[in-house]
């Protein structure tokens, strides 16, 4: 199954809380059930995206790290 990512957020270099704030603004633009990809370098974003996913109900479907860049894929509730 291929996952269609409809929206990307480049939050590299940004500190807390801007990766979350920018993601929250961007996720509004995509329909329910579709995916958004976020790139961030803030180390705190690992815990923060997990918490944000629990608070908002937007599912964190994928998470990885490559050379200090964290990648999160979330499905809009």
């Amino acid at each position: 199954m291929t996952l269609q990512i409809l929206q990307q957020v480049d939050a590299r270099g940004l500190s807390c809380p801007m990766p979350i704030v920018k993601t929250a603004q961007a996720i509004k633009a995509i329909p329910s059930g579709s995916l958004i990809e976020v790139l961030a370098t803030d180390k705190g974003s690992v815990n923060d995206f997990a918490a944000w996913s629990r608070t908002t109900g937007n599912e964190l479907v994928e998470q990885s790290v490559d050379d200090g860049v964290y990648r999160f894929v979330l499905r809009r509730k």
Partner: protein
Amino acid sequence: MTLTIEQPVEAAAVRVPEPEVALQPEGAARTKELVIVNWSGDLDKVWPVLILSSTAAASGMRCRVFVTFWGLLPFVKDQKRIVGEHWMQKMLALMQRPGIDHLKLSKMNFLGMGPWMMGVLRRKYNVASPRELLEAATAMGVEFIPCQMTMDMFGLKREDLIDEMGEPAGAATAIEIMTEADASLFI
């Protein structure tokens, strides 16, 4: 004499029906709410207020910030330098320059040296400024409620404050929204 208070007829007519359970977000009975009382005008207090309020809005919560005492000065429009009518109100504005870009530190201010160093570090580590956070917070629907009593005491008029501020209110409003919220903070 007996005093009878009749139930107003309109009250029943305008009552909004409870929303259908099926229409509400999964797992949430209602929107969660955060209320913050922003009492301080210091950089090290206003900054976290803006971080938490914008994050609450980003987390799908309703967030209201009751802005009172020294906390009101950062919400004065940029072009306003001296506010108030009384000479003491003008003196206050002179001693603590209003506006979101002119916050002082509660500790280690050292005549502006502390805030300047915070600004350098903030830019080096790409941390959002109070101004950027305020813009994000208002764009995402954080409601800022100015305290009417503070406005009177500081000689602040509604038009002295940024346009995004809500209608002025008092302590009873603050108490009401704090007791109804899921979490309330005094910063």
